[in-house]
């Protein structure tokens, strides 16, 4: 026994005698994690969160969340002697007079963008592979909550410097609050301590940004990870992988080294971006005043779709009995986002109802094998992308010399026409890919090698797939549609008439697939029936 092993033994003994954790520790150090690049997306989000906590703590040592009027005396000459809020002055101080301050500000902002991007892409991975299915519905909902909180947290964060751009964003948020029927005006007066902009919103959103939401984040992330741990990770299908096992590497040492190393890589890349790529140069915008604005005002990307929806909303208000309802703000600013996020959160239950599938699933789907879900996903993404494009319509117009009115009309029509079109096209592509899989299993891979037969005929050599590959292409289930029961054998109408009809319709759509090769077909080929 080496000296090091003795020390390790002593430490383990010390801990176990006080916690009795030996059995639990042993089991969990050997915990198996399946390996796939797409499982790193959630990790990126987690690590970005840690980076945000670290860099944010650094920034908070100098940031002064106050709207007290000060005269700028720092080293950035163009703003010398300009009146501004203490918040903006201290953000300039961090950028110009604290060594490494600008780097940390840029790391913090880049990490926020990467955090949101990682969450969004991680969510797409979970959606398209069906990882949200039973028993993981709770974790999906936790994920939707984290996404929503992330959008709010990011918005509050870039509002803090109190520059002209961020103040404009707050102005818009204020208008959304104020548009809420009946009590919106009161809500906005409470939130802002009076009329906009007032002198309290920076300290208020500061405490929400650095304490309240990060606290909720920590709790939700912990629950999210504990569920992943307890339910064990899903895995992609393939030879040797079943619903009953997990194939992968043990936590100690392989996964620790890979995940730990990956944390440093994510941090390193974020730091590199912070070093070389300028982001949110607040000193160029100047302090906020409600009477000024800079052209090309843009929110961060994860808010862009919301701004795009607001921009394309029809100019529609209702005036009733002396009261005003601003549909042009309510609809894109609150109602549609509310419907979208509720729909996302409930999707696991909606799909389970549509397909009638109530079983546990630990093997992931290949997106092509579930054409309906994949098409729904692409449809929703198309909606978001059109909204996002419209959020940048002014920049697109100036960069590509287009008419902003035309882009707006493209978006207004496109947001209604393109998503259904995307659904149909995606579903057809999925079915074609299924057909290609069937071909490959039955007739092998096209090798591109042409051979001339003695009688002059040209044929292309097809190479038979390996048993592993054939299994991977045929292991999935193809669900059958739920039979519609309109009346029982006594002739009594089904009391759930409309619901049953809808379910039968949806389940028929979900069951639309290209029949995968049956055992008989494959056997026939293996017995030497090559064509």
């Amino acid at each position, binding site marked *: 026994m080496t000296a090091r092993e003795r020390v390790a033994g002593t430490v383990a003994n010390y801990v176990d005698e006080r916690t009795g954790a030996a059995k639990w520790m042993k089991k969990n150090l*050997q915990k*198996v994690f399946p390996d796939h690049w797409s499982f790193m997306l959630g990790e990126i989000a987690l690590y970005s969160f840690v980076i945000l906590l670290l860099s944010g703590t650094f920034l908070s040592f100098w940031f002064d969340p106050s709207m007290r009027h000060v005269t700028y005396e720092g080293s950035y000459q163009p703003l010398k002697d300009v009146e501004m809020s203490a918040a903006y002055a201290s953000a300039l101080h961090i950028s110009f007079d604290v*060594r*490494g301050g600008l780097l940390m500000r*840029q790391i913090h902002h880049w990490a926020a963008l990467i955090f949101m991007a990682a969450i969004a892409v991680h969510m797409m991975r979970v959606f398209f592979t069906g990882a949200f299915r039973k028993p993981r519905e709770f974790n999906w909902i936790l994920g939707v909550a984290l996404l929503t909180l992330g959008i709010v947290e990011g918005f509050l964060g870039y509002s803090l410097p109190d520059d002209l751009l961020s103040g404009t964003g707050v*102005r*818009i948020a*204020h*208008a959304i609050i*104020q*548009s*809420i029927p009946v009590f919106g*005006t009161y809500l906005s007066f*409470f*939130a802002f*301590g*009076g*009329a*906009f902009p*007032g002198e309290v919103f920076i300290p208020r959103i500061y405490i929400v940004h650095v304490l309240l939401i990060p606290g909720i984040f920590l709790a939700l992330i912990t629950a999210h990870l504990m569920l992943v741990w307890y*339910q064990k990770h899903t895995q992609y299908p393939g*030879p*040797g992988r079943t*619903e009953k*096992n*997990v*194939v992968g*590497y043990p936590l100690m*040492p392989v996964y620790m*080294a*890979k995940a730990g*190393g990956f944390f440093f*890589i994510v*941090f*390193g*890349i974020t730091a*590199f971006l*912070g*070093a*070389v790529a300028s982001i949110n140069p607040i000193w160029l915008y100047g302090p906020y005043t*409600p*009477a000024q*604005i800079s052209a*090309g*005002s843009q929110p961060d990307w994860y808010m862009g779709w919301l701004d795009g929806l*607001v*921009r*394309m909303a029809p100019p529609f208000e209702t005036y009733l009995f002396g009261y005003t309802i601003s549909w*042009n*703000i309510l609809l894109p600013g609150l109602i549609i986002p509310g419907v979208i996020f509720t729909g996302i959160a409930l999707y696991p239950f909606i799909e389970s109802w549509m397909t009638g599938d109530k079983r546990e699933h630990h093997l992931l789907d290949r997106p092509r094998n579930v054409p309906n879900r994949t098409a729904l996903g692409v449809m929703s993404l198309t909606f978001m992308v059109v909204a996002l494009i419209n959020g940048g319509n002014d920049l697109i117009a100036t960069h590509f010399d287009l008419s*902003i009115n035309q882009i*707006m009309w493209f978006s207004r029509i496109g947001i209604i026409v393109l998503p259904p079109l995307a659904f149909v096209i995606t579903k057809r592509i999925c079915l074609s890919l299924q057909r290609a899989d069937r071909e490959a299993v039955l007739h092998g891979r096209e090798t591109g090698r042409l051979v001339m037969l003695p009688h002059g005929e040209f044929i292309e050599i097809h190479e038979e797939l390996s048993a*592993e590959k054939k299994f991977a292409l*045929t292991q999935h289930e193809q*669900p059958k549609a739920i039979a519609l029961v309109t009346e029982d054998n006594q002739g009594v109408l089904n009391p759930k008439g409309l619901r049953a009809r809808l379910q039968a319709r949806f389940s028929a759509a979900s069951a639309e697939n290209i029949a*995968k090769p*049956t*055992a008989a*077909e*494959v056997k026939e080929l293996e017995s030497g029936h090559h064509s």
Partner: protein
Amino acid sequence: MSKELEPLADPGLPVHVNRKADTDPIAAKRAERQVAILFSLSGVGTLLFIYSFFFIKDDVFIFLPIMGTTNAHQLGVGVGVAMSLLFIGFGAVHWAKTLMPDQEVIAYRHEMRSEEKDRQDLVATAKEGAAAAGLGRRPLIKRTLVAAAGLAGLPAVILLRDLGPLPGNSLNETSWARGTRLVTDPGDRPIKPSDLEVGAVAQVMPELAPGKKRKLEDIAKDAVLLIRIRPSEFQLDPERLSWTHEGIIAFSKICSHMGCAVALYEQTTKHLLCPCHQSTFDVTRAAKVIFGPSARPLPQLAITVNSEGYLIAKQPFSEAVGPSFWERKS
């Protein structure tokens, strides 16, 4: 699913193939050296950081291809930190991939659902507990408890009452009153019609009593744009026309959509454009909305001149400025 749709038997996990470093001690030694080099590069990055932090002044700029002129201090500090982190990561991952065991292992899952007996026991325990508390038998307790708990949430809401004042009529009011002089912003100088040429645009504020400072929440409602065009170009009803003066027309600068500053004026088309959401207003037709999401024209301020020839407000705004709200009379 039925068995006949499971066409092929699972061939099982593919046979494990050894990496070079698993069998060849020389390759293993090489991998070890590579990992060590990567970790050392991280140390180099830390040194670069320390050097840049202390010894490169923050006003030194260098020229780099692609990046252009760059602050050397910021670049050295940032790239140093990035290197010190990145190479630890690269080293650890390379170590895991070349030298740590890469044999996949199999663990088994358990179904989430508990054993039937445990489930029944839980139901029994819960029932027993509820019965012991007697909630079912004593509905009075249950109802008063639910009501009390609901009411106890009220203080949490009511306590927030003093977050801000009640809006009252304040959203309908601005600092503009009958006779208020229009002053330039910035500068606070009163202006005469002759100060504005045809085609000119200016931002104005209501004149302040001497010694008073303008608050941001006043600016957020009072800001006005003054635009001068040829009087013949107006297409206004007689009342609105009487609100203009020698081709000078005044609108609230605060967008009637979401309150951004409507700052872009296109001289040739005489359109005002809000940069936030592209609502476009036609100056010649009393700021009628001709494009974009805004549902209302920008409120027009009636102006005239006083006896000294300075531009003044004829009357306060006839409607609330800025974004809509529930109590807004239209």
